[in-house]
């Protein structure tokens, strides 16, 4: 059952071959049995899930339910969920029971998709390995010595281990795509502004974007239909024409121009990963797509610009965590300054503190022009590169990450080497473009993800290309051996 697609689950529910309560119990059981191995959940919410499943069954019985009604899911613990602890992977919010629902949460609640729980993540989404969580690292289901990627590593691992058919994620510098790649699942980061950020705890506001993480492109298309939409509570939410992302999945990719940036295949890319990506390119060519060379000459500046801008925004976004109105408060503060500085020193982990401090520095008097403003200019250069490249191609293809999943603990002492794990994903966030990660093979039994990047609002095209690729490959259908019912090619 845990290997079925969203569409198959929907058919079972709609035809009443299985009830939502049964399905929900099935996944809750799997979480209980298996999650001890990978630690992908921070909170499991069986009561809420079953209560929602019962409501879903009532609607399913009435016969006019939405195709997604009754399908269980999980939220990354960054989405505020009314009445449920929403920790953002931090000690700072360990006691924070959200008093309201994020837009994404209420959208999916309205479809009666039972919430199984909240998934683990890098603290405040700052990280690429889910090791900075206050609740301990999540482990990669493919190799429990390896990281699942991050920051949405809990969602990626939970889907990969078949603990949930789908989970939400957020992507600020690659946090949906990189863990999807490391865990061998599919994930899409839509155009910036396509999915409301309301209730999604901010890391870097002008980069943050929510999205679905599931097994296949087709699953993602179904979920994107439910998640995309204008929200008046988010000033950066886009008013877009309603699109059915499943409608064009079966279109042919014949004649599609796929841009291959020379810059992607240079220094820093694991040669074995390059081989996997080149095989994927060959598959797409066989389907009739045309490969064209494109250039992204400012790509190499993106990581530096990102690590100025994102921490700058974060340093300000995280100022609200001060021990006054909610969240962690230090014991016996001796004065106001002590309350602030000790609550924050004790409540935040090391990487979050580093980024807050680096961000404060980049904005401080005397450095603003050299760092912040300069990085904003580079941001435009990086975006303009993409816009120019899309004059000669329809989508851009490359690796999601320079290597497969690295080992737990391998990079925790060296933040900068961790930052470089997002080398290929970061430029997309600078530009705000839609992009997705598609399973494309393995290196040393660890999954490798294919990166597809499109022009603004080209989500349907990306899903179409990925779906066509998944019609001729089965990387996305593979599951880790240790999980019963799994098989590996």
């Amino acid at each position: 059952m845990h290997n079925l697609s969203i569409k198959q689950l929907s058919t079972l529910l709609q035809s009443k071959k299985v009830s939502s309560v049964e399905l929900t119990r099935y996944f809750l059981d799997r979480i209980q049995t298996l999650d001890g191995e990978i630690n992908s959940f921070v909170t499991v919410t069986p009561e809420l899930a079953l209560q929602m499943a019962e409501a879903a069954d009532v609607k399913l019985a009435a016969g006019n339910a939405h195709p997604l009604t009754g399908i269980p899911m999980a939220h990354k613990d960054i989405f505020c969920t009314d009445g449920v602890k929403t920790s953002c992977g931090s000690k700072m919010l360990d006691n924070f029971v959200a008093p309201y629902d994020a837009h994404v949460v209420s959208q999916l609640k309205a479809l009666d998709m039972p919430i199984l729980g909240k998934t683990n993540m890098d603290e405040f989404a700052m990280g690429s390995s889910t090791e900075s969580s206050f609740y301990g690292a999540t482990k990669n289901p493919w190799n429990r010595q390896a990281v699942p990627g991050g920051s949405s590593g809990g969602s990626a691992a939970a889907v990969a281990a078949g603990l949930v058919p789908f989970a939400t994620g957020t992507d600020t510098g690659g946090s949906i795509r990189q863990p999807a790649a490391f865990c061998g699942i599919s994930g899409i980061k839509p155009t910036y502004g396509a999915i409301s950020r309301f209730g999604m705890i901010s890391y870097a506001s002008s980069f943050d974007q929510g999205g679905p993480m599931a097994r296949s492109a087709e699953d993602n298309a179904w979920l994107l239909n439910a998640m995309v939409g204008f929200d008046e509570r988010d000033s950066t939410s886009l008013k877009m024409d309603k699109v059915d992302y499943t409608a064009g999945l079966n279109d042919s990719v014949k004649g599609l121009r796929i841009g291959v940036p020379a810059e992607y295949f240079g220094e820093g890319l694991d040669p074995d990963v390059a081989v996997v990506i080149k095989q994927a390119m060959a598959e797409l060519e066989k389907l009739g797509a045309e490969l064209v060379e494109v250039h992204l000459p400012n790509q190499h500046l993106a990581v530096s610009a990102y690590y100025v801008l994102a921490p700058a925004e974060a340093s300000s976004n995280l100022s609200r965590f001060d021990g006054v109105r909610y969240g962690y408060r230090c014991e016996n503060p001796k004065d106001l300054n002590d309350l602030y500085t000790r609550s924050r020193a004790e409540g935040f982990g090391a990487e979050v503190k580093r980024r807050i401090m680096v961000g404060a520095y980049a904005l401080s008097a005397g450095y603003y022009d050299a760092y912040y403003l300069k990085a904003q200019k580079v941001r435009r250069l990086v975006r303009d590169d993409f816009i120019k490249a899309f004059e000669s191609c329809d989508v851009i293809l490359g690796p999601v990450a320079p290597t497969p999943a690295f080992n737990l603990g391998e990079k925790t002492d060296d933040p900068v080497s961790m930052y470089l794990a997002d080398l290929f994903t970061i430029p997309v966030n600078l530009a705000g473009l839609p992009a997705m990660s598609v399973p494309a093979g393995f290196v040393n039994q660890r999954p490798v993800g294919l990166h597809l990047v499109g022009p603004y609002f080209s989500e349907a095209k990306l899903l179409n290309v990925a779906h066509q690729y998944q019609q001729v490959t089965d990387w996305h259908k593979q599951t880790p051996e240790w999980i019963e019912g799994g098989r590996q090619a």
Partner: protein
Amino acid sequence: MSLQVSEVKKIAQLAAIAVEPAEFELVSKKLSNILDVFAQLEKADTGGIEPMAHPLDQTQRLRDDLVTEINLREKYQAIAPSTQKGLYLVPQVIE
């Protein structure tokens, strides 16, 4: 690039994060490593380039002037560390 302890102190103060004296050296080293990443930017030729604050060239949407919120004090203060008579309590503020 290497940060002086005095600079780390100033940054910690701006960030409102307590740094123990014993930690200064390590924090300084890690922050300095990150600042080395920034240094890449110096090489970029950004002459005549407008800074970009947002990915899309959208403009601010305006909300009608309507009261749409209700009083949820009880719910909001249930998660607060310290309240009294509807107020959030903090150590004495000296003005």
